[in-house]
Each structure stands twice: as C-alpha cells, then as structure tokens.
C-alpha cells in the first residue's frame, strides 16, 4: 500500500516538475513580465491582453463619451493595391477619406484624434484630392464648438494626420516620444552603405542630389518621409509653448480615455485611443487602423514603416478592448473606403457637412442625454469637388 502511494506521489511530482520546466521555457506573447516579452518589443510599447482587459474594466466605471468622425479630405482614385496589397489583383481604384475623430467628454470639452491636414499646397499638387475643408469650419457646421477643443491625440505624425495644429493654440497635443525619436534616429542614419536612402527626408539623395528609388515609390520606402519639416515645426511650436505631452507608451488621458501604444503598427510611435461610450469601447487607430475591413478580414496595409506583425497585434488590441461589446465593429479607421456608408456600420449615421466642400461627418455614438447633431433631413447625396483651392504659403 505504502509502495503504491509512493509510486503515485513520485509520478505526480514528475508531472509537476516537467510541467513547471515547460512553463518556464515558454515565451508567451501576452506575458508582460521582464524577459518574457516577444523579441524586438520595447517595454513601453507592449501591453498584455490582461492589462488591456483591466483597462476595459476601469473604463467601464468611467463617464461615457460622445464621438463623431469628420472627413478632413479625400484621396481620390487610389489604386486598391497601393492601399491594401491583398487587393492589388482587383485592378480597381478607391477613394479614401482622411478621418478625424471628435470626442466629447462629460465636461463638454472636446478631444480630437488626429487633426487632418491643412497644407493647401499638397491639395493643389495632389490634384486627385477632393473635399478638403478646415476642421474648425467643419466642427462649427455640425454644431460643435472648436473653442472647446482642449486636447489633440496624434495617432501618428504624418502630414495628413497632424496638420492644423496651429488652429488650436490652446489645445494640448499628445504624441509618443518614440514617434519623434525614430524620425531623429533615421535622420542621422549613416549613408555609407545605402546612398542616403534611409535618412532621406524626401526623394533627394543627400549626397548626389539624385532621385532616390523609382519615382513611383517616391519617398514611401524611407522612414523619414511623411514628416515634412513644416509638420514637425508645428509640433515644435506646441512643445515650446508648453502645449505638448510627450508620452511613452500607455497613458490615461482622462477616466475612460486611454492611449495605447501601437509601435510600428504604422509608424514607430503610432498610438491608439480607447474611448468609453454607450456602445462599448471605441478604439481610434489612425493609419494603424487604416482600413476597417482590413481589421475585419485581417489584411495588412501597404508597406511603409508598417510592420505587418505589429499591425496585426494592434488589430488584436482592438479585438481585446472591444471584446465585451460590438467587437471589431468598434474599431475606428482613418482611411476606410466604405466609411460614411452602411457597409461600415459604425459610420452609417452620416451626412454631408453643410457648406463642407463635399466633406462628410458621422455621428458614432452619443452619451445618454445628449442631443443628436445629425440634421433632421441629412443630405446624403455623395458629391465630389476636385476644384483646386488657392495656392498660398499658409500652412
């Protein structure tokens, strides 16, 4: 009898030992303990699913926010494959909105997620663009007071998402330190082995003055491209005037309003914004979530600085944060072609902004007791205005 018990105990001990050893060697993708994170992951850029779920629980005890989406401008006739490589075979073009999120807190103050663009020269030159309208005018036209904007969370600092900052002199911007450090890092990259390609601000080789790469690639393959000096200057203006919060990873802006890092999901310092609403957690993703259908169908965006794996992990963050309600339907995309239609259900409640140069707005969700901003008879006739705006020196 004793012998049998000893045998059983020994076997159980061996099983426990083997199990423990096995566990010690396992590298879990959602383990945030030091030494357990996946390779090439900065500690500040990593969040385990457990931590994300804790943020959901915390946010659910916070106040509810209202949210809208407005179309800063629209890129027209973009080859589908240039937007999503998986769709290259379709040989069709798509029109891509450039979306800005507007979030209203319980105190009536507004937070922007991204700020669109205002570099009129770009619109003039990229004459396939349409529908640009200044964000202040757009907000006024849909019944929101631009003077109430106190925060601007920049999903990333590319020029089409971080423009118009000087339009809100009193607003504090939130940007990841990693976003700024990576531009600086690549600006100083050695030129010995790559002819300056890596550190090119533009398409010009710093050594020879020649065009870098095939013209159709323009600067899309260089890490610094996408940040014209003009845009970085606007960020500098905010920093020097004490209106910038340079954050490092996760950051709670206010109860129910949480920044989550998405490093290399699009750029090195991309960040998401979790917003507590009556339809669950909304997650704004800028270009990390360039396409909502991309999140739904697990499609990667076009190659730039985007690391496909990191983008998928950022998609996963949205799935986790929205797991209690609505799932991926609550992921807010920056350039989703089906935005402002029923095909992207979150934006189905849309209308043309009055005198908005064909730009559109969508009411995503209202906090309880809030009045809708959708007109009684919303104009939903899709229009395009490709007229070139004045070519001025204004930013």
């Amino acid at each position: 009898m004793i012998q049998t018990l000893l045998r059983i105990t020994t076997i159980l001990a061996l099983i426990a030992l083997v199990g423990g050893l096995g566990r010690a060697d396992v590298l879990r993708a959602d383990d945030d303990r030091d030494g357990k994170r996946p390779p090439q992951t900065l500690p500040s850029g990593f969040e385990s699913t457990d931590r994300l779920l804790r943020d959901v629980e915390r946010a659910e005890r916070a106040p509810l926010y209202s949210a809208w989406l407005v179309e800063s401008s629209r890129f027209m006739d973009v080859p589908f494959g240039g937007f999503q490589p998986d769709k290259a075979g379709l040989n069709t073009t798509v029109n891509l909105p450039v979306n800005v999120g507007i979030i209203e807190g319980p105190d009536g103050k507004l937070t922007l997620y991204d700020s669109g663009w205002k570099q009129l020269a770009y619109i003039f030159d990229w004459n396939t663009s349409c529908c640009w309208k200044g964000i202040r005018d757009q907000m006024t036209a849909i019944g929101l007071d631009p003077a109430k904007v106190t925060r601007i969370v920049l999903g990333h600092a590319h020029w089409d998402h971080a423009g118009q900052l000087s339009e809100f002199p009193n607003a504090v911007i939130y940007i990841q330190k990693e976003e700024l450090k990576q531009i600086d890092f690549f600006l100083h990259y050695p030129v010995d082995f790559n002819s300056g390609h890596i550190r090119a601000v533009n398409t010009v080789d710093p050594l020879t003055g020649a065009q870098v790469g095939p013209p159709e690639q323009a600067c899309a393959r260089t890490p610094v491209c996408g940040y014209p000096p003009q845009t970085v200057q606007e960020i500098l203006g905010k920093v020097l005037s004490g209106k910038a919060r340079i954050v490092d990873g996760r950051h709670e802006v206010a109860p129910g309003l949480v920044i989550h890092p998405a490093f290399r999901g699009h750029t090195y310092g991309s960040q998401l914004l979790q917003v507590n609403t009556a339809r669950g957690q909304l997650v704004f993703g800028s270009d990390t979530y360039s396409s909502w259908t991309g999140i739904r169908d697990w499609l990667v965006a076009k190659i730039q600085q985007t690391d496909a794996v990191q983008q998928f992990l950022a998609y996963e963050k949205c799935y986790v944060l929205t797991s209690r309600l609505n799932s991926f339907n609550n992921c807010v995309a920056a350039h989703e072609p089906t935005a402002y239609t029923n095909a992207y259900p979150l934006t189905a409640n849309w209308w043309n902004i009055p005198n908005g140069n064909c730009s559109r707005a969508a009411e995503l969700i209202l906090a309880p007791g809030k009045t809708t901003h959708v007109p009684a008879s919303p104009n939903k006739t899709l229009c395009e205005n490709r007229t070139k705006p004045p070519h001025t020196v204004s930013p």
Partner: protein
Amino acid sequence: MDVGRPAAETMMSRASGLLHLWMSPRTLVLGLLAVGLVGVLAFATTREMSRAVTPVPAPPPVRPTRPALSPVEETFIQALRPIHGDVQRSLMRTSLGQILYKTNDLSRAELKTRMEQALVIYGRAETGLRALEPPASLRNDHEIYLTAVRLLRESAVEAMKMFNDGREEHLLAAYPKSQEASDKIREVGGKFWPSEFPPN
C-alpha cells in the same frame, strides 16, 4: 441450373464480405471523411469561380502633375534640389533637437552642435542659392526660397543665444521665423517636386 448455384453462392458470399468490409466503422468514418473533403473542395471551387472578377485595365498610378517646364527651368530646379535636401534635413534636425532637448533626451551641448551645424548649412545654402541664375518665370520662387533660408539662419542665431545666457525663451523667440520658413519651403517644394511627400 445447379452448376450455377455454387458460383452464385460464392458471389453472394463475396458481396456480403465486401459489404461487411464496407460497413465496418473504420471504413464508414474514412468514407464519410472522403465524401466531406470532396464536398468542401467542390464548394470552395464553385465559390472561387463565382467570385472571380473580370479583369479591368490597371488604373494609372496616382501621381501629381506638374506643368511642362522649359529646359532652363528644369536645370534651375535640378540645381536647387541638393540645396533643398540639405536645408530640409537641417531644419528637421534642429526642430527635433529642440523637442528632444525639452524632453531631456538631448543635452544642451548636443543641441548646440546641431544648431552650429545648421548655421553652416544655411550659410552654404544661401551662397549656393545666390549663385543660381533662375529664369524669369521662377525668379519669385527663387526669392521665396532665399527668404526662407535667411529666416532659418536668423532663427538659428536667435536660438543660439540660449547657449550664452542660458535663457530658453530664445527658442520660443526663434520659432516664428523657422515656422514661416518651413511654410515657404513647403510651398516651393510642393511646386517643384510634387511627389516629394505622397499621401501616407
């Protein structure tokens, strides 16, 4: 008739054996699996065929247009290009240098080095710009660019004062000029090199 009976029995017996083999649980499961696989394959093939899209000609890539330039204009723009690259990179380095200095990620000495290097580059750019002979049609753009570089130099000189008296207010005082310069550079850059910063 009797002759045929054993043969018939043998056949019956074989058939029964085959049926037994056929009906064995293992064979049944394997058979069902095979039928299932064929079904899935058929469904997938039909679905793929029904989803096939009619190929259409590839759309032209999105590319900005620029009015046709004369050879003289083209030569001028080509000559401006390396200057433009240097100026933009210097402006970026000093802008980011100031930001990273404010976040304690860059020392004062490192920022000073960047500003000094920028001053050298702006001086060189100004000399290079003055040496260019713009065609009459681009004289205004040339003037705008020259003004921008002058503003950058003045801005850097103002910022450098911080290293003498230690007052960071000089950075704020220097800012409006560098911002104005960056607007002007973007204006000219967008006109001469429209594909410089494509949509992201």
